């Protein structure tokens, strides 16, 4: 099969039971995506598939032939950090860092979902004009952080949303 990962095409012969996460980690050497639970409970393995965030431990690699997969390794551009990566650094949005690749990929996907007008479970009365902390919390609630860096993850993501919208946040 063919896996398109971070702009590169890989020809792979995989057991059809191989998850996308294992394909990335064990076959392509892309260990940035983490295995925290292997059951879709923690979000540490979150990657972007055609721009949408998924738990890569719950996807079979063979179902993703030909689609564009982006992992944490593919977010930075020629050494320049993605704005979400930079915001996590600036806001100290992590401690041990194990959940961080998943948090960042999830945030990238989430910001795009918001831009496209996707409502969340806490959205009422039509899409809000701007992300607020409540929306960020709801939309990021699939990514566990055991170090408890949530307090810094929320402003990190809001920084990126605000910068993209041309506002400055406190």
């Amino acid at each position: 099969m063919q896996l398109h990962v971070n702009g590169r095409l890989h020809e792979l012969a995989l057991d059809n039971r191989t998850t996308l996460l294992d394909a990335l980690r064990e076959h392509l050497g892309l260990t940035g995506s983490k295995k925290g639970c292997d059951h879709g409970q923690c979000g540490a393995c979150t990657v972007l598939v055609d721009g949408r965030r998924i738990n890569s431990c719950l996807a079979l690699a063979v179902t993703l032939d030909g689609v564009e997969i982006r992992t944490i390794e593919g977010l930075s551009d020629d050494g320049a950090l993605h704005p979400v990566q930079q915001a996590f650094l600036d806001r100290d949005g992590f401690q041990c860092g194990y959940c961080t690749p998943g948090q960042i990929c999830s945030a990238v996907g989430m910001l795009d979902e918001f831009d496209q007008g996707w409502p969340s479970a806490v959205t009422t009365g039509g899409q809000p004009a701007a992300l607020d902390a409540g929306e960020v919390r709801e939309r990021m609630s699939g990514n566990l952080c055991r170090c408890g860096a949530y307090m810094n993850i929320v402003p990190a993501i809001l920084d990126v949303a605000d910068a993209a919208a041309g506002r400055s946040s406190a």
Partner: protein
Amino acid sequence: MTVSTEVRNRTAGGIGESPVRPDGTFKVTGQFAYSSDLWMDGMLWGATLRSPHPRARITSIDVGPALKLAGVSAVLTHDDVPGEKVYGLEIADQPVLAFDEVRYQGEPVVIVAADHPETARRAAALVVVDYEVVEPVTDPREAVGHPDWKPVHDEPGERTAMSRDRAPVHPHGNIVRHQRIRFGDPDAVTADVVVQGDYEVGMQDQAFLGPESGLAVPADDGGVDLYVATQWLHVDRRQMSGALALPEEKIRLTLAGVGGAFGAREDLSMQVHACMLALRTGRPVKMVYSREESFFGHVHRHPALMRYEHGADRDGRLVYVRAHILLDGGAYTSSTPAVVGNASTLGVGPYDVPNVGMDCWGVYTNNPPCGAMRGFGAVQAAFGYESQMDKLAAAVGLSPVEIRTLNAVSEGSILPTGQRIDSPAPVAELMHRLDAMPLPGSVDQDIRLLPGGVSNTTHGEGVRRGVGYAVGIKNVGFSEGFDDYSTARVRIELVGDEPSVLVHTAAVEVGQGLVTVQAQIARSELGVERVTVAAADTQVGSGGSTSASRQTYVTGGAVRAGCAAVRSSLFERAAARYGPGEFRLVAGKVESLVDGVVGDIASLLLDGPVEHTVQWRHRPTQPLDEATGRGNAHVQWAFCAHRAVVDVDVELGLIRVVELACVQDVGKAMNPDAVLGQIHGGSAQGLGLAVMEEVQVVDGKLRNPSFTDYLMPTIMDMPPMRVEVLELADPHSPYGLRGVGEPPTISSTPAIVAAVRAASGVDLKRVPIRPEHLVAAALCH
């Protein structure tokens, strides 16, 4: 010649600042290699077969079927352990691989190496182990047979039809440690106001996200190299040395990236197993636990049963505390003795109490082994004594803040061990500051912000607001006479034309920011901005454990001392070059105190590098007297207080923590961002213990070894926090700093429970609180 030790913090990125973590960019780009990310050509994968029974005799083990599976290279049992068959942090009683008997569900019995992780797991499943199941000891009260679990008041003890003496889990009996504290005259004293309570703490899991894992590589000298996530490289090595029958110098450990620790990596997990397989097969062996296996692969927080009686005068001033604390250590010793030490010595909390009678037991059962978790001993006791302080406040008509400030310890107070607090103890100030913080607005009727949230369980009818307070005390560093030290190698040299410092310790970064603060210390001490912290390994002396909130204190102290030694050598060179005088190093320059800048640090390094390796230890502590608990057991105390605001749906038993406020004294905020991170994270784990986190054990078996069933706080559960940080210097510690990591875990739990009690009116006696605790009580009203 005289030298100045004065340091001015004018070198960028020094202490008191929050520079970006040196490992930060690697962590946000996915390049940081955690122990589960390691890979080597030709490596094998290890797997572990574990006992399905909490207690059973092993009658036979047949590895034959596993060995026949294609791709399997080794299947090892206790017969293959090269050296000592048992290991342990304090007491070696835990088998490397079970022999004769298994004592907890999940105990390792057989290990396998194969060319694929699935093959290894399938091979493990093919091993035939015959067990003769034995009834397990699962109630810690039964474990001690009630010999000392007597009531602290005049009611009979809780004996049930099930109560009886049980067969010892270990030949020497079921009591790991019994520590008594006798202070004043606790038996004879009486008081006008007496409050009593029984309290229970459930089993909490550290639940780090990065599972136990590592890579063992056999070496040409017959030894082994291990890349692993742990908390204490040298004590891992010491235990491995015994089990592998190899001298320590033939076992080289290098720290791999650590995906959280929180105490769960203080004991060995896969270290010896991976090395046994690597040495047997002659190939690198990687082991990575699954999430389910991880729940069986490390110790948990001790569940506690506590009985407290507080006596006070009519004004609320404490006269005595009597308490029994029973800690379930599970099948093996692990850190249980230290947990008992902390729970007993800190068991009355940060209060002046003239008469204390405390008995604390740590016991063996066939439940999962328990050991280190953030704030151990202090966390359990705080739930008991803080619940009692609220009861006492209600009994004498004081507010929660008033009862605590009235009885608060302060500098100079004598603790129940007889030890005097010889540094600031601003407990009353913590409470006053909490009290002065604004409260959030009243119950938000937006259903998204009510308990139950978007599950749309209420429109606010049964929702009540509650506010609760708690304060905790924690010892920093290893106590009770332990020789607690760290080692630092500091080297300064020219790289290009620029002075560059290399700091090398074996102290473990787990996310708390230790590598950042080590570099900050070197910058401030040596006036050099370019500082590299080498990977932690066993090529340098022990850094001690990353636990007990001790690393910034002890390894920080070692780095400072190493820098001081380097600085002295540089000053000798400066004196030779510029003439005698007093110097200091600031921002790359050598300054004479008389003449100002006299040259560059770089010029002092033209003669070559300077390197010193130093060991640094904190003030010695003393063991506790077994019968009375007297002894200067601790080197430092840390204090933290929380105020919790909660909304409780009293009809459904649902809780939403609306806000946490926290005040903590950290002595010196070496890295303010990291301090806040520790306070946020510790508070979150305390919140988890209060309202959701519990490893549920029934008849010795884990019922919820997954993140679907073991609930911990998500970003939705963690409320906004107001944090104030005090910096009252401890004159005995480096820079006046105080350990930071554990204290916030201690007080957040009882503050939240107090708030839930205030909201619901239910006399909650157990954490975590479950909906039925609230609803069942409400139905009885």
